[in-house]
């Protein structure tokens, strides 16, 4: 199932290390980069390339929070729910995002555009609440600011992505 390009990139990554298994999280993220997530078949193929057991690769894939074992939306929103952001109003932001997107934490909008996930500290503790979308950090969030940011990712002002 892995494309030639994916295999080449994983093999290239493995060559950077004395021990090929050191490349396993990077290999899974290479798969994720092209597919958005890591499907079952990819686990076996990555294991074969790196000379690991299938269950070992699965163990890694399910341990790390940035490796997704289920399909996610085109954009992944990670909202910080750690203590400094909680004090400065994280719950209000999470409630607002859930309402706007029509999903609970962990959910993906029905149009497949956004997945909403909680995450630990993003290192913006002096500028909370904070969230990260596709690797870009946004801080000092208000519900209004969150709407503006969602609009940058193609969510219209009165679009309701929720269809139940």
């Amino acid at each position, binding site marked *: 199932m892995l494309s030639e390009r994916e295999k080449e990139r994983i093999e290239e990554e493995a060559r*950077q290390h004395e021990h090929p298994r050191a490349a396993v*999280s990077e290999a899974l993220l290479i798969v994720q980069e092209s597919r958005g997530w890591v499907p079952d078949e990819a686990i076996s193929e990555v294991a074969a390339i790196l000379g690991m057991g299938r269950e070992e690769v699965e*163990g*890694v894939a399910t*341990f790390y*929070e940035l490796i997704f074992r289920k399909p996610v939306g085109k954009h992944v929103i990670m909202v910080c729910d*750690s203590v400094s952001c909680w004090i400065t109003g994280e719950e209000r932001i999470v409630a607002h995002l859930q309402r706007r997107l029509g999903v609970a934490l962990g959910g993906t909008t029905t149009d497949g555009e956004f997945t909403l996930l909680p995450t630990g*500290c993003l290192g913006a503790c*002096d500028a*909370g609440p904070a969230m990260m979308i596709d690797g870009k950090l946004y801080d000092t969030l208000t519900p209004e600011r969150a709407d503006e940011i969602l609009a940058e990712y193609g969510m219209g002002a009165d679009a309701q992505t929720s269809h139940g």
Partner: protein
Amino acid sequence: MGWEQMLKPLTADIRADRAALPLAAYEAAGGYQGLRTAISQTPFQVQQAVTASGLRGRGGAGFPTGMKWSFVPMGAPGGSTADTGGHRYLVVNADEKEPGTMKDRWLMEGNPHQLLEGALIAAWAVQADIAYIFLRREYTQCAQSLTRAIAEAQKAGYVGERVLGSGWNISIRMHMSAGRYMCGEESGLLNALEGRRATPRNKPPFPQVSGLWGRPTVVNNVETLVNVPHIIREGPEWFKSLSPGSDPGTKIYGVSGKLKRPGLWELPMGTTVRELVDLAGGMKDGLKLRGLLPGGASTDFLSADQMDVKLDFDSVAKAGSRLGTGTMIVLDDATCPVGMVLSLEKFFARESCGFCTPCREGLPWVARILESLEQGTGEQRDLEILEQHVGLLAPGRTFCALAPGAVEPLGSALKLFRDDFEKHVHQKRCPWK
């Protein structure tokens, strides 16, 4: 150095917008002179200088850095390495994920070469030939600035083969973590680097003897390492003169919570809680400070009448908490202490690696009880169960420091904010909602 650089050696050259200091500017400010000095000395001399400086690890535990390095088997004093059986590793722990901590991000974004120089000197001191920077993938700006800096340093001959004309080879590799708080725990980090789940390892053997792939390995925090070039360049006595007390050097302090100007400051080690809160502009109008976690999420609460506690390792320990990462999280009088502890314990329960039973089962139990208190369904007996967990998850009861760290704010909150916990039970609701 100018006086500003002398007082704030770690951050004086960092721009307000945090744009990474380029190599030429870093060199103009004295950058890589420490590495030149180090390489002209034996590894043992470099270790001795860092030991003499009194530098203690800035990642949370405060272990003396020079002593940590000295546990690497080096053969005879003078630096010749006895074993030649393979690689030796220096690992930069840049997996900053302790809630409330944001200091290493500042150091890496703003002055990546300072970290590289510190890592290179540390690598020389233990004769490592491979250095890893274990960086959170979420720290995308740090990744950019470090990747560029590594390329610049390679081109300039600070990294690579026969560094600065010596016979020493060193390569630097970035490892972008796939994300988990446990990667910040040094043995969990090594497992992650080996392509395994980031569960903790048994100690001993300590990593200095048997670390990455069973080879001698030193793991140091970012802030620890950025001190090293300055210590080597200016000397241990200069480093001691930076702080008025017995704990030497400067510290990157942070303040978060409902203050007027939360942020980060580099100040002499031993700055008081009050001085920091004042720098942060004090509490927002109408709010009072009720307590604070002095050094990240896994430290005991200090109370509002401990404002004059000096923030150095020994003083904070004497006051009943830990300096930890030195980045304080402030609780105000309009925020529910039980809710704050719930936020903390939800984090720790989620981040438990599941490897040992007390942590895997205990922390979610603690979080569920706190949740029920917040929802008004808590009972008196629940407070006893919470107290029991403080003991059941104490140091020695679990495999690593995650759970003991998690119950530090819990145990201290149960004492300090007892009335608030009781009110949740008796009023059958959260009084702040």
